[in-house]
Each structure stands twice: as structure tokens, then as C-alpha cells.
């Protein structure tokens, strides 16, 4: 093919659209969110009772990760208008003009279908159906319905981010159980203080685009109180896996210490009145630690279950 090739006008890029690179498509899948999904789903797979062939386990994990990435792409497709006006999201591929919204929609849809079919056909139907439900919940319930309508958006929508360990668990057992529900609950209760800490120091961004995050609707003081209450619920919930046999002593120690630090940061934030720089700094500290908290808990669970499997325990 020479450089004089003419291509159909319908497939031409717009003036400022040079065509997305493979990297642009990868970033469309929200790789940082995907990394947390991989970790939590892997814990679900390893902690579940019973046995899954390692090849099928790897396929399940890949399908769950791709499904999560696909729902991220669909989220970026739908939210492209507000992403372009927020500092945190303005550099995403669609606002930057690297990928068109239509391409993102097609990419997200195709990847979703492939992920669900792969998990359903190769692992089990229950896990496939669960993954389909998770993607639909994130895209339709959270992104399209709740996000722009209610300050409880991330409370209810947070369920989508909490499902992966249950999907991983279902990939092994074909069902749900109290233990997998506990893993779900930890992420579910963790989501509001995590997101509201971010929303506190991004208030102006959310205000500009009209997304009714809790600080914008109820005010910083009420949000800080709710963050503290959720943190107080999260700390004991984080320790609970030890008492149902999901976590060992290392997990008990980690979740106790990290839970205490989480509550301490939430308490510090609660004590700062207003929304000045000091408040922003405390919110950033809590937001940063919240990520560390969830990674730490699930990494310890991962390590403990890996040791158990390797040693045949």
C-alpha cells in the first residue's frame, strides 16, 4: 500500500483525531482500577473452597479483568462530556481526541461480550452471568442512572466495584457464600469514604460539571461526618474475614492496624471545619491511605491463601 491510498470517508479521522494507539485503548480500560479488580478477583478465586484448574483460573481472572476494563471504556464513552471539563479526567483518550466516543463504545461493547462469553463458556455460567450483571450495573445503574442524579451515586454504584471477588469466588464454586459476601461488603463499605475523600478536594470540578457528589450536595461538614461513620463501620468489617476463617493471623494484624489508621485519618478530617487547604490535605491523605488499605488487606489475603495452597493446607 502506498501513501496515496484513499480510504472511505466514513472511516477517516476528524481533523484533530489521529487515531488512537494501542496504549490509548489500554488507558480506556482504566488500568489502575483494573489492577484492583485483578487483585480482589484473584483473592476470590484462591480463597474459594474447592478446586479450579490453574488454566481455567487464569482464564477466569483474565475475563474478569477484561470485563472490568470494558465497563471502564463504556463509562468513558458515556461520561466523555463531563470528563472533558474536569481536571482529573481531561487527559483521558476521548477528551484528548485520541479516540472517538463511538470507537470507545464499540470497543467497550465488544470486549464486554467477549469477556462474559469467555467466562460463561469456559469456566461456568454462574460466573459469566455474574460478570454480565457487574458490567451492566456499572454502566447502566451507576454511570447512566445514578451518577448525575443522586449524591448516593457512589454508595449504590460502589457495588459494581465490589463484585469482582464474588465473581472470582463464583468461578470456582458456581455460587455465592457468606465469605464471598464479606469480601464484597468490605469493598462496598470502603467505597464511600474513599470516593468522598476525593470528592472533597475535587469539589469545584464536580460543581462545574453538575455531578451531585456528597460534598457538593450535603456540604463538607456532613460529608466528613459520613466518611467517619463509614470508616467506623469499615474497620471491624475489615477484620471480620479472620473470624470466618478467610484470613489468618497476618491478616488479623494487618486489618486491625490499617483499620485503626483509616479511622484516625477520617477522625482528623472530621475535626477540620470548612473546605480550605488544610481540609484538602487531610482529604488527600485519607484518599491515598484508602487505596493502600484495600491493597494491603487483599494482598495479605492473597499471600496467606497462596501459602495455604502451595503447602497443601
Amino acid at each position, binding site marked *: *500500500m502506498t*501513501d*496515496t*491510498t*484513499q*480510504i*472511505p*470517508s*466514513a472511516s*477517516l*479521522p*476528524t*481533523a484533530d483525531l*489521529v*487515531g*488512537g*494507539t*494501542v496504549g490509548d*485503548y489500554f488507558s480506556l480500560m482504566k488500568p489502575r482500577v483494573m489492577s484492583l479488580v485483578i487483585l480482589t478477583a484473584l483473592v476470590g478465586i484462591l480463597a474459594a473452597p474447592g478446586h479450579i*484448574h490453574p*488454566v*481455567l483460573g487464569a*482464564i477466569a481472572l*483474565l475475563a474478569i479483568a477484561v470485563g472490568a476494563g470494558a465497563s471502564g471504556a463504556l463509562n468513558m464513552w458515556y461520561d466523555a462530556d463531563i470528563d472533558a471539563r474536569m481536571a482529573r479526567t481531561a487527559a483521558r483518550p476521548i477528551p484528548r481526541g485520541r479516540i472517538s466516543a463511538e470507537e470507545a463504545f464499540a470497543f467497550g461493547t465488544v470486549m464486554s461480550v*467477549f469477556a462474559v462469553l*469467555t467466562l460463561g*463458556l*469456559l469456566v461456568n455460567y454462574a460466573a459469566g452471568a455474574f460478570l454480565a450483571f457487574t458490567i451492566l450495573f456499572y454502566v447502566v445503574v451507576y454511570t447512566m442512572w445514578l451518577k448525575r442524579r443522586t449524591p448516593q451515586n457512589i454508595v449504590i454504584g460502589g457495588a459494581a466495584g465490589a463484585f469482582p471477588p464474588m465473581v472470582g469466588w463464583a468461578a470456582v464454586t458456581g455460587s455465592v457464600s457468606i465469605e464471598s459476601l464479606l469480601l464484597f461488603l468490605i469493598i462496598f463499605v470502603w467505597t464511600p469514604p474513599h470516593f468522598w475523600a476525593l470528592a472533597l478536594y475535587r469539589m469545584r470540578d464536580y460543581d462545574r460539571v453538575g455531578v451531585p457528589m456528597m460534598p457538593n450536595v450535603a456540604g463538607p461538614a456532613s460529608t466528613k461526618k459520613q466518611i467517619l461513620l463509614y470508616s467506623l463501620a469499615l474497620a471491624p468489617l475489615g477484620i471480620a474475614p479472620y473470624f470466618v476463617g478467610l484470613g489468618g493471623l497476618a491478616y488479623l494484624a494487618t486489618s486491625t492496624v490499617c483499620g485503626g489508621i483509616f479511622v484516625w485519618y477520617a477522625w482528623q478530617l472530621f475535626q477540620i471545619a470548612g473546605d480550605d487547604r488544610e481540609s484538602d490535605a487531610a482529604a488527600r491523605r485519607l484518599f491515598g491511605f484508602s487505596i493502600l488499605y484495600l491493597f494491603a488487606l487483599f494482598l495479605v489475603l492473597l499471600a496467606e491463601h497462596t501459602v495455604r495452597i502451595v503447602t497443601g493446607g
Partner: protein
Amino acid sequence: MDKQEEGEKPSAEWLRQRRLRSIAIALMLLVLVALFYAATIVRMGGNVLNRAI
């Protein structure tokens, strides 16, 4: 008639990106085929040889 309707000569950079994307799609399809093959073998296990002659 705007540029899109007229058709436009794609730039070398645009063509390069397109080629890379096509290669990535091909690789993904190959991975998918490999996954289905591996899963089939794993699921059938020893039964692959256990058939009427």
C-alpha cells in the same frame, strides 16, 4: 462539502497507528483461540483418548 465527505489522504502516522491496532486485534484473537483450545483440553482431560473406535 467538508473534509470527511470529500475523503482525505491519511497521514503516514495515521496509517502506522491503524496497522498497530490491526496487529493488536489479530494478537487478541490469537490469544482467544489459544484460550479456548487450552480450556477445551483442560476440560476434556484424559477423555480425549476415551472414545469408541
